[in-house]
């Protein structure tokens, strides 16, 4: 009984270590392989509604049937500076600039993703 409990903990440690190692390795790979992006693409409910170059500073309001978000592009980074959604996760998200990065506002079905630059 004691031995089997020990074996179980051993397998626990192995599995947990493997999961954490895989996660850390993929995090490093993702951040290394990602290139700076060039455009911020705005999609609402899967449909593209706008593209904004990251090289120009703009502030734009995105009004969807579910609510309003403000997208601000400044110094080559895209950020959601205001949202009237209930959770505010998108406006709390840090600014993004790497190709493939996204800011998602689930309540408004809004996705802002960065494209361009080298393909990941």
């Amino acid at each position, binding site marked *: 009984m004691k031995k089997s409990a020990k074996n179980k903990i051993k397998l*626990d440690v192995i*599995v947990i270590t493997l999961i954490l190692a895989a*996660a850390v390795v993929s995090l490093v790979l*993702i951040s290394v392989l990602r290139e700076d992006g060039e455009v911020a693409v705005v999609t609402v409910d899967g449909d593209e509604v706008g593209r904004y170059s990251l090289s120009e500073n703009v502030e734009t309001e995105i009004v969807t049937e579910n609510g309003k978000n403000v997208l601000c592009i400044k110094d080559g980074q895209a950020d959601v500076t205001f949202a009237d959604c209930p959770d505010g*996760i998108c406006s709390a*998200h840090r600014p993004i600039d790497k190709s493939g990065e996204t800011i998602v506002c689930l309540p408004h079905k809004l996705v802002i993703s960065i494209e361009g630059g080298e393909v990941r």
Partner: protein
Amino acid sequence: MDKKITSAKRCALIGICTSCALVLSYVEVLLPPISAAAPGIKMGLANIMTVFVLYRFGLKPAGTVSALRIILSALLFGSVVSFVYSVIGGVLSLAVMTLLKHSDRMSVVGVSAVGGVVHNAGQILGAVLLMETAEIAYYFPVLAISGTVAGICVGIVGALLLKTLQNVKLY
């Protein structure tokens, strides 16, 4: 679950476990988010009850308690979106935890840790389906780490609970 148990007792027991899980969900709603910049990172305290019921009473009661807790907490403090995520994550993690429990090769803590990761994998899957974008999968490594840590904590509390209550007659 014991076959001799009457349906009234079973009903009461599931009710008690569900209300414990709901209280844990509520406590988690009251706590500030762990990181505003990283949504989806949660302790998943209610899963302490899922783990406890799964090990003490088996899959059926654990499924019932989770299903009731997910429906009730969505009605009380959730949204349709969070409900969809919880359902996908809950079903997947319960299925995997049951398989691991039956294989009997990992302890409660290890099973719970894997359950946590699978729960987050389910959330990402739900987000990919709902948002129709695969980009969000890049976020999985972050959630996998938080899910593992949360699962370990939940598993430790669950194991303590099982140990403390192992000689207590619950029905």
